């Protein structure tokens, strides 16, 4: 990424100001790389505005975000659990290699499947500019983040359908959902990248305005998504998958999952 990154001398605190939403992939990557219990990495937080990434813990309960833990509890202003804070006031991410996609992409987002600077950030004015966004590396990152987000919708969908069908009134433990995510993403990670399965035909890009990032990936995205369906089919074999994204009207409004959630706004 060619333009200078303005974060190195910044101490404003994006790592304190937000709740960081995770996908199942984010949780899996952190838990597997750091060998930590999932409940020490993430926690459920009730969604104020429901999104396709919202998961149930009871059949008739609210939907939850999966959010990165903060030190001392999920409270506004608290530092991320993984923030290394130095005695001279500076800080750095302590799991940089394995950090969540929302942190990799910040302060950009893929709202409506288009890359852009977030409308409100805590960054110093002028720190991040269009010059950064012009870098192809950011666009490639946006595509990858979008791919993982859409895959997560499929993973969450099956869990929610299963939970509604089995009907527990009392909440199931968060660790059960986390265990499901780990198994699903273990299976996805083992799927061959060049699987020979037949792929459904994708519509012409012009039929999907607003989904340019997704369509840039074309067949690669589709292969990954078929692998995701296979993985969750193996866990919940009798449940219907989500409609393909071009058959669905609900996913186009999923922008709320695209980035950090302001904490205590």
């Amino acid at each position: 990424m060619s333009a200078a990154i303005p974060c190195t001398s910044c101490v404003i605190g994006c790592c304190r100001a937000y709740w960081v939403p995770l996908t199942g992939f984010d949780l899996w990557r952190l838990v597997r790389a750091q060998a930590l219990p999932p409940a020490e990495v993430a926690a459920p937080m009730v969604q104020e505005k429901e999104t396709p990434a919202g998961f149930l813990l009871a059949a008739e309960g609210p939907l939850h975000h999966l959010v990165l833990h903060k030190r001392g509890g999920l409270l506004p202003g608290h530092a991320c659990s993984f923030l290394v804070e130095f005695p001279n006031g500076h800080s750095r991410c302590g799991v940089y290699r394995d950090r969540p996609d929302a942190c990799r992409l910040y302060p950009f987002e893929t709202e409506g499947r288009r890359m852009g600077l977030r409308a409100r950030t805590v960054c110093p004015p002028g720190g991040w500019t269009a010059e950064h966004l012009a870098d192809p590396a950011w666009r490639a990152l946006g595509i990858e983040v979008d791919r993982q987000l859409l895959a997560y919708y499929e993973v969450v969908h099956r869990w929610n359908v299963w939970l509604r069908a089995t009907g527990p009134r009392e909440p199931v433990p968060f660790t059960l959902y986390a265990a499901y995510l780990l198994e699903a993403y273990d299976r996805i990670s083992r799927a061959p990248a060049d699987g020979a399965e037949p792929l459904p035909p994708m519509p012409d890009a012009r039929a999907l305005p607003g989904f340019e990032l997704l369509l840039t990936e074309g067949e690669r995205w589709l292969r990954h998504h078929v692998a995701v369906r296979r993985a969750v089919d193996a866990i919940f074999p009798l449940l219907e998958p989500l409609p393909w994204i071009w058959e669905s009207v609900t996913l186009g409004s999923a922008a709320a999952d695209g980035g950090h959630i302001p904490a205590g706004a």
Partner: protein
Amino acid sequence: MPPPTPTAKDRRFLACRTKRCCRAGAVTLTDRDLVELCGRLGIAADAFVRAVPAAAPRPDAFALDDGPERYLLVLGKFAPREGEALGRCVFLLGTEGGHHRCGVGDGRPLTCRAFPSVEAGGVVLPDDGGLCDCGGWSPADLDPAEERAVLEELGAARLAYAARVAEWNAGVARRGTRASVADFLAWLGVPAVTPAPSA
């Protein structure tokens, strides 16, 4: 991108909750460690390094004037918190559940990467020097070829650093004026002082 597959040593290290070695040990640094850490973190050495007096003469001990005192560069530590006997390394992260992880991971100093391996008579074996309280290391935790490679890297880095320290010490004695730790770091080519924050 999937996470890299942990080695047996990684798993053994990750399984340790307390990381006493990151509290009880003093991690001496070479110029190579400093350049790599500053580059990786985009931060100057003053965030994580401190100079401590060397108790005895050693090749990596540097002078600040023409007197007999010598100093070592070590990883900084926080003062012990209430109820703790030992301060923790500035890079040590603690989770809410009591697990601890290194905040620089693969970028940690060579001394930490080599720990607890030593080579004796051509054989690589674990020797934690009494720093661990997590049950003891076994040779089965170590891949001899990988450990030997890290130990060789560490040995070479220490030799190269000792040569630079000797050159610095000779210069200090020749000039006869007092230098600062920041002067020494700058001479090594290490960013010494973090610029003022942008907010």
